[in-house]
Every structure is written in structure tokens, then in C-alpha cells.
């Protein structure tokens, strides 16, 4: 390994600290953010060689770098991403793109092809004939990406020397050209180039196709700074637009939940106020009967099993009070208010109701009923006490949780937008 060659494992995901807030909202933008990191680093341009194993990727790289920086073998190679610097360019050899590539290799391949590369050399051995379905699909994807990000892809037909004759080579090249119309197509032979260099044979070097490829590469490399600036603007713009879309949706959700919260409370308050006014009117009649309040007159032991006027009056008052409570209870149940919160529940199930907690079970005489239902202050006390339990009810608590969640989501998106730089500077 030459001294200036560096082999490293660069990070394969976005820098967490810089993009934490954005990743919280748009985790699927991890790749784009990692690419923005690469762009922000403003390092030398990256040329990635892509292709199936044994199609001569490493040999091509070695020729382009004029040295044997990358291991060459006839078995599947380039398991790990290797990077070498030469002539102001970082050269990356991607793991072989094959059906059996999975796991670690995929990550490295992804990084080499998508995160790091500015220019892709898509390598295909001439002897294999046309591109197969997987290669075609990848080339299509790369060309679509070129269109979007302006990262260029050069298609390189390698091992031209292994073909029987020029006709056979010509047929393959033309077939490939038909498969990817409009793509820059370069036919090379690493073997000829090496021999030409070793034997100082200029013609052989020319016939290797490498000089022509190098010229095309030099042109493409000259376009990299402009392409990078375009790509950074593009990615930031897309991410900002997506964040704004998310933010608008979240703001709308939050506003609608708050609206629902207010509407529920208003419906509860208004309904209860109306009902208490109706009950107050009815109760006014119950408690303003003329004559002495017989309910306060005690009976005697001799009357224990007798019906007395006092007993009838106590029954009348209590039944009226009970009916008022049953109406209130029905209203409360309609608004999801009936059982007590867990922490207030007692061993006596019959007492674990909001009605009992608010009204108590003490005996109510005329004066009590007048104070509770017929006076403004009494009704206001009941209104406030029931509203307290309304807010503690399960459905209200659930709605409150949803509002808190929506509010937190909106805050997170605002943080993400604030964390997004105006341009791609580091």
C-alpha cells in the first residue's frame, strides 16, 4: 500500500449532533443529511467505481491512478469500501454490486454510491454482453439521480481485449448503447493500458480507451463544484419544504384539537348552566311551600311506624332533591363524567361517583336546597365543582394528552426548521 493512500471507514450516517433536531422530524432524510455533511466538508471530489465483481473495477482504478492501489483478484473482491487519493481526487472502489451482497457490504456500497460520490463510473465487462436487469435498474436510478443532483455517471465497458474481435465488441457496445440511450459510453482495456505504459507503446495506450475516459473524467470533475452547490441547495430546499409541510399539518392538528377542547368545555359549561337554572326554578317551587317547615319537626317514638306530615314533607324534599341529582347525573354521564379518579376511590363502590363527591351525602333541608340550587353563588359552586371533575374525566385527560403531543410535535418541527442552515455551509 503506497504511503499516501488512505484506507478509512467514513461515517455512514448523518452527524447526529448537527442534525438531531431535523432527524427527529424527518428520520427518512438521514441519507440526504449525510450527503449534506459530505458536501459541507468540501473535500476533494469523489469518483466511485461501481459494478459487479470481476468486471475489472479495481484494475480500472489502478490504471486511472497509475499504481496498484486496489487489490485485484479473480474472486469476489472489494468487500470493504476502499478510498485512495490521487491527483486531487478521492477514488472509491464500491463493493461488488451483486445479488448476494447484503448487510455490511450494502452499507458500504450505499455510502460509496450515494453519500460520497460526485462522479460514478459504472463498470461492465464486455464479455458479459448486454447489461442485465439489475445493472439496468441501477443505471436508470443513477441517471435519474444525475438529472436531479447533477452528479454524473459514466458507463465504462471494460476488458475490451477479452473480446474475439472488434465486431463482437462493436455489437456489445451498440447493444448497451441501445439499453441506455444518451449515456456517455466508454470502452476500455486496463490490460492494454498497463502493457502500453510498461512497454512505452503510445498506440497501445491510445487503443486502451483510458485516455479518452480520462478526458471525459477531467471535464466532469471540472463541473463538480457547480454540481455540489446545486445539490446542497436542492437538498436543503427539499428538506425545508418537507419540514414546512409537516409544520403546517401539525399546526392545523393542534389548532383543531384546541378548538375541540374549547368546544367540549363550552358545551359542558353551557349545558350545565342551563340545566342548573332549570333545576333552580323547579327547586324554588319545592322549597317555597307556605307554612312551617315540617321537615324540621321531629316525630315521636310512638310514631316510628306511622306516617306523619313531617315524614311526608321530608320525603317530598328528598325525592325532589334526588330527581334533580338524577338529572344532573344524566347530564354528566353524557359528557363522560361519572366515576371518580382512581386516587379518590374508596372501598365503598356506591360512593365512588362524582355526584357523591360533589353533593356529599349529608341530609339536605329546604335551606340547603335553596342555598345550593336557588342562589347564584350556590349554582356557581356546583358549576365549578362539576367542571373540576369534567377536566379529570378520562376523555378530557386523553384529549389533553393529544394536545400536548401535537404541541410537542410542532415544537420539534420548529426546532428542526431553526436547525436547518440557510445554505450548505458547515
Amino acid at each position, binding site marked *: 500500500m503506497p504511503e499516501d493512500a488512505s484506507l478509512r471507514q467514513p461515517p455512514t450516517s448523518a452527524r447526529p449532533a448537527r442534525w438531531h433536531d431535523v432527524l427527529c422530524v424527518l428520520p427518512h432524510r438521514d441519507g440526504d443529511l449525510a450527503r449534506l455533511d459530505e458536501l459541507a466538508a468540501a473535500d476533494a471530489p469523489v469518483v466511485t467505481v461501481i459494478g459487479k465483481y470481476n468486471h475489472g473495477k479495481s484494475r480500472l482504478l489502478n490504471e486511472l491512478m497509475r499504481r496498484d492501489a486496489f487489490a485485484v483478484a479473480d474472486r469476489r473482491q472489494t468487500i470493504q469500501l476502499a478510498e485512495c487519493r490521487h491527483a486531487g481526487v478521492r477514488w472509491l472502489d464500491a463493493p461488488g454490486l451483486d445479488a448476494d451482497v447484503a448487510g455490511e457490504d450494502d452499507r458500504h456500497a450505499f455510502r460509496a454510491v450515494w453519500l460520497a460520490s460526485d462522479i460514478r463510473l459504472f463498470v461492465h465487462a464486455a464479455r458479459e454482453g448486454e447489461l442485465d436487469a439489475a445493472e439496468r435498474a441501477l443505471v436508470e436510478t443513477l441517471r435519474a439521480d444525475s438529472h436531479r443532483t447533477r452528479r454524473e455517471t459514466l458507463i465504462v465497458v471494460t476488458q475490451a481485449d477479452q473480446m474475439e474481435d472488434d465486431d463482437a465488441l462493436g455489437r456489445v457496445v451498440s447493444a448497451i448503447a441501445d439499453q441506455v440511450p444518451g449515456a456517455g459510453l466508454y470502452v476500455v482495456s486496463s490490460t492494454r493500458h498497463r502493457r502500453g505504459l510498461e512497454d512505452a507503446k503510445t498506440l497501445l495506450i491510445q487503443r486502451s480507451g483510458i485516455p479518452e475516459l480520462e478526458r471525459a473524467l477531467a471535464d466532469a470533475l471540472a463541473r463538480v463544484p457547480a454540481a455540489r452547490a446545486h445539490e446542497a441547495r436542492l437538498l436543503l430546499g427539499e428538506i425545508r419544504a418537507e419540514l414546512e409541510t409537516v409544520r403546517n399539518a401539525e399546526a392545523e392538528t393542534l389548532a383543531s384539537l384546541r378548538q375541540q377542547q374549547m368546544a367540549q368545555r363550552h358545551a359542558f359549561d353551557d349545558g350545565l348552566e342551563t340545566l342548573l337554572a332549570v333545576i333552580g326554578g323547579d327547586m324554588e317551587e319545592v322549597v317555597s311551600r307556605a307554612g312551617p317547615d315540617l*321537615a*324540621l*319537626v*321531629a*316525630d*315521636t*317514638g310512638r*310514631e*316510628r311506624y306511622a306516617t*306523619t306530615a*313531617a*315524614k*311526608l314533607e*321530608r*320525603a*317530598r*324534599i*328528598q*325525592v325532589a*332533591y*334526588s*330527581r*334533580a*341529582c*338524577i338529572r*344532573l*347525573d344524566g347530564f354528566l354521564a353524557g359528557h363522560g363524567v361519572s366515576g*371518580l379518579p382512581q*386516587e*379518590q*376511590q*374508596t*372501598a*365503598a*363502590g*356506591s*360512593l*365512588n*361517583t362524582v*355526584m*357523591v*363527591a360533589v*353533593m*356529599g*351525602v*349529608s*341530609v339536605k333541608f329546604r335551606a340547603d336546597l335553596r342555598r345550593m340550587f336557588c342562589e347564584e353563588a350556590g349554582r356557581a359552586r356546583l358549576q365549578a365543582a362539576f367542571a373540576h371533575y369534567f377536566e379529570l374525566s378520562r376523555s378530557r385527560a386523553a384529549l389533553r394528552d393529544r394536545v400536548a403531543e401535537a404541541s410537542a410535535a410542532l415544537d420539534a418541527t420548529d426546532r428542526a426548521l431553526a436547525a436547518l442552515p440557510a445554505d450548505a455551509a458547515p
Partner: protein
Amino acid sequence: MGVKIFNGKDVQDFLRVIANLDGTGGNERAKQVVHRIVSDLFKTIEDFDLTPDEVWLGINYLNKLGSEGEAALLAAGIGLEHYIDMRLDAEDAELGITGGTPRTIEGPLYVAGAPEQKSKARLDKNPDADAGPLRIHGIVTGPDGAPVADALVEVWHSDSKGFYSHFDPTGRQSEFNLRGAIRTGADGRYEVLTRMPASYGCPPSGATQTLLNQLNRHGNRPAHVHFFVTTDAFRKLTTQFNIEGDPLIWDDFAFATREGLIPHVVERTGGAAVGFEEDAYRDIEFNIELTPKVAGKDNQIVERARAAA
């Protein structure tokens, strides 16, 4: 229409099958009781020509009663608990047992485990602005009038809102507030300092009061203080006294009021001397006379589910 089929052979045979009267196994007593109760229910349906809707209303009511946990409350309201007391009284009369402090119903709100104190206890642990200071004291004696030492006097009552500690849905009372267990000394005396209880009733929109509404009855009780008095030598006494002057005293929905259980309430001053913060307080003397065991046994012990803390 009013069809009459109850006395026919079909219905009578049917009733015997329902209770499995002629089959073997099971509990004979349970069979007899179920046979009688279902027979009486069938007869009621026939006599009043109840419609199917009315019958289902009743069945759904039982579900409501159960889900609200008010069965014990309804038992008091329809006089079951007092009827049991009437029978125990009649039994005593037959056995020739007279005298003693009258028993009355226990109610569903006793909690076992109040810390035991010697001779005197302060029961109120939480402030209650609507309940004035109340001193209750007395002497526990046997049938011969002699003081009973080491009697355990358990006392429990409501606060001014009608709530008992451990059963207060507002969560305002601490454990064993207004509850106490006092062990008498050689003089047989007990004394508690507490706050005045309130008259209270059934939950106003609950299952019991809903049924009482149909009877045009209230579900209220006069203010009262519960007692258990337990000794080794005598029968355990379960009773309550009512607060004199309460208009509900003879109009108790649970029918627990008895002559002899309405001690005088005396207005006193000098609260500091007995241990109150206030000067004016009310004073109730409630003496307790226990009754002898029957053939060495307490024939009145009631086993029922009770809360403990």
C-alpha cells in the same frame, strides 16, 4: 288479562325443578330457600299481573344495584337489617334475657384496625369547620351494674358532610379519622373527644334512592355514632346512638332508632379542661350495659364482610 296459572300443577312442578327439590345433592337448606323465594316472586308476578317489561326493569335494577355496590344500603332501606334485629330481640325475650343497652344495626362502614387507646381517645384528626366539638363518655357495666374492665369500645361516625374516613370520595379525611378503639380501665370508663356527626343518607342519584323515589320515601338517617363493645365475659354489643334533637330520629330510612339510644346532648363550657381547643362543647353521656352469654356462648355474633385498614 290477569291469567291465573300459579297454582296449577305445571307451575308447581316447574318450581320444584328450579330449586331441584326432588333431586339429590346440593344444599337442602339452599334448595328450600330458593324454592320459597322464587315461588313468592312468581306469585307476585301473577297477583300484580306484572308485564314482561316490568319484570326486566326489576332484573336490570338488580344489575344497577350490584354495579353501584348498594345492596347493603338497600337491605337497610327495605328494613331487612332492622327485621333481623327484631328477631334477635324476640329471641332474647324467649330466652328471658332482659335489660342491657339495646342493640341496633352495624351498617356497612366499620373498619377494623383502629389503634387501641387506654380509657380516653381523641378521634378527630382533620379540621372540620362545620362540626363542633363533642365529648362522649360513659361506663361499661355488666348485667349486675358492676364496671367492666378491659372492655374494648370501638366508636365510628361521619364528618359534617356525612362521610366516614376510608369511605370519603373527596379524599379529605386521613386514616381512622373519627374512629377509635378505647380499652376500659378498672373503673369501666371510656371517653372520646371528637366532632359532631351529620345526618346523611343514600347517594342521591344511586340505585337505593332511585327505588325509594318510587315509594315516595327518603333515604336519610339521623346523625348517629356507631359502637362495638367487646369483652371476654359478655355478648358483643353492636349499637348506635342518635344525636338528640335531630328531626330524623324517628324517621330513619334504616329503622335503626330505638328507645334508650337517644342520650341527652348537654351544652357545656370549659372545653380546655377536658382537652378541646374551644371553650363551648357538647357532652353526651352514654353508659353501656352488656348482656350475658347464652349457655357460655355469644349467640349474636354476626359474620359479614368488613373493611380493614
